[in-house]
């Protein structure tokens, strides 16, 4: 599909053909879905959470389905930043769209080390700093809840990395707007929200939790209304662009996030159900613009706020 100028954007310095982003952890390194869609149909792809050292991940079972959603407890399985730089980074240019690397650390120093290793690396258009992973014992979400810790962490990563810096927020923080403001103050160029929410399922037959990790992160349509609310509240609190996500399947879902104040949207779980999601959502957005006589989708960013 040709990219359409009515959907193009510049997100914190990243030129994107459309506002659709493949969500971290749901699209591998961009190559697993090439049998279905051209990766270049995405505005950008965010790769799996990358850590300093390789991580084996959690034991199985790692996933369980829930009403209109799923829980995952992957545990940030990834081959580590060195492997990423040697084996994966050289292939990224072939994807034909900007790629952001989602990074996670167990300590503040680890975040900084990964960030500086990725600084200036060709083929990496920006970083998404994951301070919201619910599935690891150390790091992840424990960094994302305290505004002071977030401000410290983001400003240190900011020093280590000069390119576009996105910070991925959790709603577990309770006060997402305070955390969002802290990340903005510390120099984040954009914020993405929300990460999965911690949940659990019990196997009543075996009288024990289904997931080996006991808990997992909820994603999919069940998450959507909560995520839209989070974007709505955060858009009021900060002026950096927002990447909204949580249960987006259709153009209408994506428009909800955009109208709540998101500049771009990410699609995760929906790819598992329909690998053609990106194509169908893009087409649906264009149809909406046509039907409503709108010249560029950006006119709809925060539109639900203006109408109040």
């Amino acid at each position: 599909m040709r990219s359409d100028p009515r959907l193009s954007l510049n997100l914190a310095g990243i030129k994107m053909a459309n506002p659709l982003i493949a969500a971290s952890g749901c699209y591998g390194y961009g190559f697993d879905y090439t049998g279905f869609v051209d990766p270049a149909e995405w505005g950008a792809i965010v790769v799996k959470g990358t850590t300093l050292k390789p991580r084996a991940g959690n034991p199985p079972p790692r996933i369980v389905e829930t009403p209109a959603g799923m829980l995952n407890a992957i545990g940030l399985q990834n081959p580590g930043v060195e492997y990423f730089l040697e084996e994966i980074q050289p292939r990224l240019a072939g994807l034909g769209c900007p790629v952001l690397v989602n990074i996670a650390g167990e300590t503040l120093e680890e975040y900084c080390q990964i960030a500086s290793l990725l600084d200036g690396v060709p083929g990496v258009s920006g970083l998404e700093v994951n301070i919201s992973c619910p599935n690891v014992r150390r790091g992840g979400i424990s960094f994302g809840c305290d505004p002071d810790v977030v401000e410290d962490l983001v400003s240190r990563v900011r020093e280590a990395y000069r390119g576009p810096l996105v910070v991925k927020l959790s709603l577990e923080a309770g006060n997402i707007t305070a955390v969002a403001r802290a990340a903005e103050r510390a120099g984040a160029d954009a914020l993405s929200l929300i990460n999965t929410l911690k949940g659990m399922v019990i196997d009543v037959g075996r009288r024990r939790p289904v997931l080996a990790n006991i808990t997992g992160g909820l994603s999919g349509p069940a998450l959507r209304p909560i995520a839209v609310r989070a974007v709505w509240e955060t858009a009021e609190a900060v002026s950096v662009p927002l990447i909204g996500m949580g249960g987006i399947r259709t153009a209408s879902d994506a428009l909800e996030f955009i109208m709540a104040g998101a500049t771009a949207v990410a699609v995760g779980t929906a790819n598992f159900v329909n690998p053609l999601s990106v194509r169908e959502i893009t087409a649906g957005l264009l149809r909406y613009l046509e039907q409503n006589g709108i010249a560029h989708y950006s006119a709809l960013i925060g539109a639900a706020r203006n109408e109040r």
Partner: protein
Amino acid sequence: MLEQKPSLIHRCQLKTNEQVTGTWHCLKLHAPDLCGARPGQFVHVRVGASSDPLLRRPFSIHHVVAEKNEIWLLVRSVGAGTELLLQARPGAVLDLLGPLGNGFPVVDEAAPALLAGGGIGLAPLYYLAWLRRQAGLPFELLIGAASCSDLPADDYFAAQDLHPLYATEDGSHGYRGLITGLLEQRLREGTPPARIHACGPLPMLAGVVELGRRFAVPTHVSLESHLACGVGACLGCAFPFKKGGQIEYRRICKEGPVFNGEEVCFEI
């Protein structure tokens, strides 16, 4: 730009949906693009249009009838997803991803391959057996279940000129006991096989690998787990493997579902 591969997403019309036994149905689909699937590969099926159940469900390629552009799925109803799928009527159009995964190796060698299917695990072995028959490669098909009423009737196999050896726990058909017992008997008494292919519940596969080790026969086992993406992107289906004294997780949907039995870490 990446090289454009043939699309792996298909809309296939359901030709027939017939009960085979108890909770098992055989679904025959018009699927010309899937007729090249290898035995042991699977398709990832959208069971309904709504968000609940949300995820696709994986099913092995049970048989391919290329001259009719047909693939068969053998589906056992175990929960909401399979129940919904089995409600589909002839004429319905199903949304399938595939063929996915690696499949069983079809090796040309003089010694026979033993194909051991436990319960619904016979699904992929049926096609593997048929292909070996077509190619004139020696094999023996072993099938196990709790009772013969849990299995398709003999003519379901005879129709493809397949004549399995049975193991039933209640002794209602063939050997009395577990399929691993039948396999052990066969390994003791018959011509030494070149390899064992197995699909079934985890404890059975662990038993098969143990027998393979004892009789020095390589094993290829097809593993199962819940899948989300089915294409390698989410790491949700990881299973532990032994590698150089360490544990390494591999994706059942991508590196598998068929694995070298020796490497599988069953002690989880």
